[in-house]
């Protein structure tokens, strides 16, 4: 029997971790394993360079539960794939493509199959590693020099010191009896199982570094920024094309929006119908609405009110009396430049021909700027009609209300 290498080095102070015996080949190993098993040891193992056929019954190893883990993982994969496809394509973002059903087995089988296999394979790989308690880099048995042969041509049995029946002398006798090629004790030399401090420090630093992006995110979520949104990839967000109302280096004046070419008219600018477009026929302001093209209607009145409230009301007020919010505020500023707007309901304007009101809207008058560019021809007439209605209603008497409805006013 060989003396333990550890005693030679004077390291006997390390606790004994177990006893190791080498055997000559798989056959001898199997026989020895049967004896060790029958002797009633529980914390021991055989070690060999390849799986020895028939060693499991010899050692009394029971079948592993691994297949069940893998089956479970496989079914999980199948479920994930089914639910994923059904939910994403069938429910959350239903999108019809080439007449295929949103969720119909023929086209969904490949992914179900692949994910089943993928998760099963994970189950086999990680499951067996976890069951085998791998990775485990430090093992007391590795301290035996002889044991290095285990990955070459060595066949070993090791009995751990924590076996209830562990008795070094008895075991050595047992091994010698089996015809071992050599017995060794092996020791647990390293008694510092705790993780070294620097690892914690590195972990702490990583944790803190990880917080930085999150802190930025929190800040960005709860504050405003004068910088535009982040473009991880600029991609086609900004295409080199001319965009309306944006600057463009392509034109010398730097404007993408092109002014009308001088001396030209757009089709709708053509003055084919002076009554409609100018409110003036043969140099005379018209007194009638262009009913031929624009018959008066309730719809037009509603439209006129809407436009009036948008464009006119800021100054003239919703009742047309010139007390709009802008006008009021401008007056309160007391700047000498401001001229208050007219009261649209007074008699002067009530008597004005509609053509003149139309022209005022279009071209402006005195202090009033022109609204031609902002308001379309038809809308101008609608506004004129609405102004007429305002004039009537602001100067109305009880007689103007239909008899049936008079009661409601009281």
């Amino acid at each position: 029997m060989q003396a333990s290498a550890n005693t030679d080095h004077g390291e006997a102070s390390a606790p004994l971790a177990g006893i190791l015996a080498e055997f000559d080949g798989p056959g001898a190993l199997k026989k020895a394993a049967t004896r060790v098993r029958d002797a009633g040891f529980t914390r021991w193992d055989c070690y060999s360079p390849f799986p020895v056929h028939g060693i499991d019954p010899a050692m009394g190893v029971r079948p592993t539960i691994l297949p069940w883990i893998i089956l479970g993982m496989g079914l999980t994969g199948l479920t994930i794939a089914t639910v994923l496809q059904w939910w994403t394509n069938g429910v959350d973002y239903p999108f019809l493509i080439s007449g295929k059903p949103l969720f119909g087995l023929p086209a969904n089988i490949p992914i179900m199959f692949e994910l089943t296999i993928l998760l099963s394979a994970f189950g086999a790989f990680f499951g067996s590693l976890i069951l085998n308690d791998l990775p485990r880099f430090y093992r007391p048995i590795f301290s035996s020099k002889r044991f290095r042969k285990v990955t070459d041509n060595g066949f070993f049995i090791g009995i751990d010191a924590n076996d209830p029946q562990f008795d070094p002398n008895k075991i050595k006798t047992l091994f010698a009896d089996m015809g071992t090629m050599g017995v060794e004790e092996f020791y647990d030399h390293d008694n510092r199982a705790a993780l070294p401090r620097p690892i914690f420090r590195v972990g702490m630093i990583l944790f803190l570094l990880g917080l930085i992006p999150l802190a930025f995110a929190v800040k960005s979520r709860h504050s405003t920024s004068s910088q535009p949104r982040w473009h991880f990839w600029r991609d086609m967000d900004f295409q080199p094309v001319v965009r309306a109302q944006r600057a463009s280096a392509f034109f010398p004046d730097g404007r993408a929006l092109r002014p009308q070419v001088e001396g030209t008219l757009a089709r709708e600018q053509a003055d084919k119908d002076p009554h409609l477009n100018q409110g003036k026929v043969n140099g005379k302001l018209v007194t009638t609405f262009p009913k031929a093209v624009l018959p008066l209607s309730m719809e037009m009145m509603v439209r006129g009110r809407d436009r009036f409230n948008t464009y006119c009301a800021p100054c003239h007020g919703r009742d047309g009396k010139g007390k709009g919010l802008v006008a009021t505020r401008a007056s309160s500023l007391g700047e000498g430049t401001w001229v208050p707007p007219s009261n649209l309901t007074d008699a002067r304007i009530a008597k004005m021909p509609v053509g003149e009101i139309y022209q005022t809207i279009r071209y402006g008058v005195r202090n009033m700027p022109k609204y031609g560019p902002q308001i379309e021809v038809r809308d101008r007439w609608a506004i004129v009609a609405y102004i007429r209605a305002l004039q009537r209603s602001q100067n109305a008497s009880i007689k103007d209300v239909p008899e049936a409805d008079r009661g409601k006013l009281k």
Partner: protein
Amino acid sequence: MTNELSRVDFLADDPTQRAPLVSPDLEFKDVTQTVCEVAEKPKPPKAWYVAFGISLALTGMLFSMIAYLIIAGVGVWGNNSPAFWGFPIVNFVFWVGIGHAGTLISAILFLFRQKWRTSINRFAEAMTIFAVVCAGLFPGIHVGRVWFAYWLFPIPNQMEMWPNFRSPLLWDVFAVGTYATVSLLFWYFGMIPDLASLRDRAKGKIGKLLYGIFSLGWSGSARHWHRYERAYLILAALATPLVLSVHSVVSFDFAVAQLPGWHATILPPYFVAGAIFSGFAMVVTLMLPARLFFGLQKIVTMRHIENMNKVILATGMMVGYSYAMEFFISWYSGAPAERFVFINRAFGNYAWAYWIMVSCNVLIPQLFWFKKLRRNPWVIMFVVLFVNVGMWFERFVIAVTSLTRDFTPASWGYFSPTWIDIGMLVGSFGLFFTLFLLFLRFLPIVAISEVKGVMPQAHGHHEEGH
């Protein structure tokens, strides 16, 4: 040695007994020594440096071209209307096909108890991984904006939309992704005990550290072996249908379309057979020189090579069968478009490609009917190289002939590759060989523990006989 080896080979043909799978004069420690020595030599053979230098240069070229592609856009390829699928897809299918042999040898032959696989499976699996790396590259850059490749995965995103799971292109993502992952796990899983061998023999600190980490503290415990074997068996059982599914799904990319020449129901098994065919050809192409360079003749015997040649012949016949079926059924269908497309393949613009394909894939492998020829290294090299070429052209013929002659004669065209196309094809070989040469240099290139397991000594009768 030669006598021993030829005895092994001779025994293979004798039905009255089973020949040993590796040279019978080997002991366990010889196997460990022979294989580990390759990775432990302080310096590899000169040829390795030369090959590595060339491969690395080509890889550099590949990645510069990819960089150029990303900056300039996919217009640098020859892909254009009507052939939107040009070299990138052809290369993708080609490399995925190559990537089938490894898992096939590992998984299917494992399940079929073809024990001769143990000598070559590691090698073939590594080849698989590297081929899949090359394959995955092409669809990745084919999407144009590579930084959006994550759109292919169902990740909740700010657009609140999902990928279309009914599209075969997405099936591809899942199939190739699963295949790459499972192959990698399978390869690495099988390597753990052998990495432990290297760990236990390592002299230097770096070797001890790296082999130590990657062998995960493997101790050869029987309880571990028990679960390990079970897991390995199940991984093999899972990988088998996976191998079928991957190239089937790749074939769906074509076959679900209505395009004549693409839409054929035989495409899935035909693609799988073609993939195994090309994959085996590539394994033999690499194995033949490697066993000489690294002195593995006793472990990878001529019989292994011959067996692979038989598989090449068999799958070559299956591919030939599919060509014949497609041709016959296109006539039998009576559909004018179907009939036209196959006549066009054989006699149209791309007839040259078609006949390269047929001669390389169907005619040349017929040499393997003869025992003498399938054992002659020069003949073998000749055949397998042509098979590699032929299988590339097969994908080219399928993708390009159909696209350039579709239903609308107005859109017919002719596809010509640009120099970037050709450079990337060549560069992908560079990448493949770079990875492969690194594997040869640093990892156990034969499954040491598995070879030991099929040696006669492993059954425990050996020592009794003495």
